């Protein structure tokens, strides 16, 4: 258990553009233990999404090493469920079939996983919507379906790339609570990318704070708050953590001093 599940060592990424090489991020050193929930928070363009995609094997990195479960990441990771910024629904499949897509593509046992799909839908308040088509759902419901799809095959890792970016504040809060509950039940190793400080503090065991481009890790903060954390009963320490992260952003010129 001492060996971290995900390890990034001196990871960096540069990509070529017409005007020369641009560094997306660099000197990334991060270790994520099994069953740990890590959130990366940072301003737009700091390379936080790039980090997720590199760990998932969806984008190559140009320096350093990333290992998952002791193996170097060189191709897309499949022992993972990913929630993207957009819900990415297959419009021709109904809600249940969109969740079961994960099982169909992997040629896993439908009979075994359909009850899991149904119970996930139930847990996210989508019971009764199984046969609805994605376009009949609201944006929040669609994103809930994509969360169920990311968990149905019981992967070791859950990765979320600004999953609430396109949602309204109230829906964000509801889905944050859903994610916390599902994570507490399953204890997946979770990597959550966000630009929202309260969201990171609410969900994560550790918050990785990133500075503006070129993206560097500025600080990693342990969030020592009991779970389940509730939005209507936020302890003072929650606000202390948030203020601390906010101050880091201010010192980096990301947030205006006032």
């Amino acid at each position, binding site marked *: 258990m001492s060996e971290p599940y995900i390890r990034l060592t001196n990871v960096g990424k540069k990509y070529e553009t017409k005007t020369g090489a641009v560094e997306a991020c660099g000197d990334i050193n991060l270790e994520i233990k099994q069953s740990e929930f890590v959130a990366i928070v940072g301003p737009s363009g700091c390379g936080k999404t790039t980090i997720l995609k590199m760990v998932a094997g969806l984008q190559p990195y140009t320096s350093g090493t990333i290992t998952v479960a002791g193996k170097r990441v060189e191709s897309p990771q499949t022992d993972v469920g*990913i929630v*993207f910024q957009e819900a*990415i629904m*297959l419009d021709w499949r109904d809600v249940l079939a969109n969740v079961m897509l994960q099982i*169909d*593509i992997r040629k896993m046992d439908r009979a075994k996983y359909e009850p899991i799909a149904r119970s996930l839908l139930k847990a996210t308040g989508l019971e009764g919507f199984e046969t609805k088509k*994605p376009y009949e759902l609201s944006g929040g419901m669609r994103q809930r379906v994509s969360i169920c799809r990311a968990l149905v095959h019981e992967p070791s890792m859950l990765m979320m790339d600004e999953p609430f970016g396109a949602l309204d504040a109230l829906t964000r809060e509801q889905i944050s609570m859903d994610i916390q509950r599902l994570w507490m039940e399953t204890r997946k190793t979770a990597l959550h990318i966000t630009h929202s400080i309260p969201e990171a503090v609410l969900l994560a065991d550790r918050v990785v704070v990133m500075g503006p481009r070129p993206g560097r890790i500025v600080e990693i903060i342990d969030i020592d708050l009991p779970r389940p954390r509730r939005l209507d009963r936020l302890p003072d320490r929650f606000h202390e953590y948030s203020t601390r992260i906010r101050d880091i952003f201010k010192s980096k010129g990301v947030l205006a001093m006032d």
Partner: protein
Amino acid sequence: MTLVSNSVKPDTGAARAFAISALRKLTPLAGVVGFLLVWQIFVVAWGVPAYLLPSPSAIGHAFINQLPLLISNGWVTVYEMLAGYALAVGIAIPLAIAITSSRRFNQLVMPTMLFFQIIPKVAIAPLFLVWFGVGTTPKVLVAFLISFFPIVIDAAVGLRSMSSEMTDLARSMGASRMQVFAQFRLPTSLPYLFSGLKVAATLAIAGTVVGEFVGADKGLGYLLLVTNSNMETALMFATIVALTIIGLVFYYLVELLESYLIPWHVTHRVELGTM
């Protein structure tokens, strides 16, 4: 008294809703009827000679009286059109798959394809006559050529329209090349493909008539030439009506197939909730 008024009230509501929906359906029809009426009055009132512009009623007469002639020639045109269209679909879709799967192949065939598309089909139709005679082949080929391009282009655009996040999703599931194609790429392309198929459906009839103009001894295009030189203007108009009907029916058949195959697409969604 109260009983009666209670039972009447919802009825009037339903009746009103029915009247509104009937009105909505009848409005386009009223436009057509109005247009024909103005035409009829214009021709009769100004005494326009029938060889210049026959009245709608005269065209209607010609259409009904010459129906067997129109059907026998129309069948020929429909057959040529469908054969050309089917050939176009059969070649265009695999070609679109090929050019979207290989950049090299795309570079190889795209300029040539564009070159052949730019050549006016009317200009090469006489060549087909020289090569293949007055039979069915040149008409089928013109219909094929004219409907081929929009299908290739739209199918290719559709096959390229899968978002990068959807690609990432598929890769994170470990989807094979075949799975990506069958489960993600192909269904995503269908709305684009059908827009090409619909454009092509309206063009195919035009291509067939062009083929018949150049050299034929049957078909509606041939009938148009004959009626034109005989100054049988009413029958000529009736032929145009027949061609229009064929084109419309074909278009709506393709659209019907589309709504059956991709009911999930935005253009076919049944409106939810109240009107």
